[in-house]
């Protein structure tokens, strides 16, 4: 049975308390830390609520580059291999296409870390 409120809801209300109730009473020199803490809570909240976009982007990248040899574990398991192959020039002939695939994967991570940045970069 799931405990309520969910972790995401707890993070959301904790963040609101921090920004709305605590921040106005903090001396100016502590605002930066408070805002950073609020940002950390927001990232955590988005990460908990994230869809499988990142998993899909990773799978597409690995499938395109390694075909059926791609492991199911996703990027973490193959990151070292991919990094090595890129450095060794194995994908030189299609560096641009690899860039597009990496862009999709980075975009998925940015949706969690900083969606506003995506917007500024003309992506969403």
């Amino acid at each position, binding site marked *: 049975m799931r405990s309520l409120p969910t972790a995401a809801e707890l993070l959301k209300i904790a963040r609101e308390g921090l920004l709305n109730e605590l921040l106005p009473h903090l001396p100016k020199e502590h605002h930066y830390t408070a805002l950073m803490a609020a*940002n950390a809570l927001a*990232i955590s909240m988005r990460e908990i609520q994230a869809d499988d976009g990142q998993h899909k982007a990773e799978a597409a990248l690995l499938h395109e580059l390694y075909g059926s040899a791609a492991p199911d574990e996703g*990027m973490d398991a193959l*990151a070292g291999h991919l990094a090595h192959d890129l450095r060794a020039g194995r994908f030189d002939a299609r*560096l641009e296409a690899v860039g597009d695939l990496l862009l999709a994967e*980075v975009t998925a991570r940015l949706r969690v870390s900083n969606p506003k940045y995506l917007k500024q970069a003309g992506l969403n």
Partner: protein
Amino acid sequence: MDANKETTGTPDIAAFAAAFLKKETGADGVEIHSCKRLGGGAIQENLALDLTITGGPWAGRHELVLRTDSPSSLAVSLGRAEEFAVLKAAFGAGVKVPEPLWLHRDAGELGKDFYLMRKAGGSAAARPLVRGDLTTDERDALLFELGGELAKLHTVRPPVASLDFLPLPDGTPAQSRVAEYRRLIDAIGRPQPTLEWALRWLELNAPASTETTLTHGDFRTGNYMVENKHLSAVLDWEFAGWSDPMEDLGWLCARCWRFGAWEHEVGGVGGTAALARGYASISGKPVDLSLLPYWEVMGIMRWAVIALMQAERHLSGEQPSLELALTGRMLPEIELDLIQEIQTIEKERARHA
């Protein structure tokens, strides 16, 4: 001597500096009126000292900045004694820097080196410059000055005896950087496919270097002081080295240092034309702006590696810090910058092919 009046910095250092100055300047006494920690500098600690020297050739009131190492430092940055030598070389070349005055080489008395320089006027804060109400003409005037200062710095060429601790690039400066960043990524030990992709592109597209000069290594908005809308001093020399002069321009113009004002290519302040004019006014030859996009990518790459190293200080448990932790979560932004800027260059190239 009263080192503790209005002291919010480190009284030990202030008292130590007063005794050091007394000896160094042959003074009868040194009175510290205030010692305040200055903001900025995740790596260095900067203390503003307001003091009076009595007796000797330096008698009078002085506003100085004492720069020392903070508890954590990056392996890629210079130590204070080396930075002092670079600052002297830059000052000698006519670059607007806070005049470097005295170096304390520690032999165990304090536990760290420091140096003292004149306090420059103005503010280094980036946001007011980027968001502030400078007119277009005022922005261009500031960029012209920035270009001129870079050109003066780039007149310093190896070999320079006082800078013999700075390694020369192994191969061209671009090749040397690619190798350096790969080493640093390997040392952290977490594979970075996007960074490897960009490094491979940087390797395949490395320009033949035309020259190697003294470079600042961290010349960006936020690291120069502006007073009454004009450049008053270039700060933060701990990343100086021998490199391609275009590397300094690329770093200044890289998207990651525009503070959100992407439309203003030069540090979020304005366009490249005024910068190039200012540079050429000193160097006597036009800046090849066609090389700039490559070096902007190299700049973003540099920031990616620095961000990784900063995040690692948190991840390794060496220095638990919310700010360093969040720097780790900035990596996707930097990766996006890398991919988009490389794609833009490739599109331009295809258009002209």
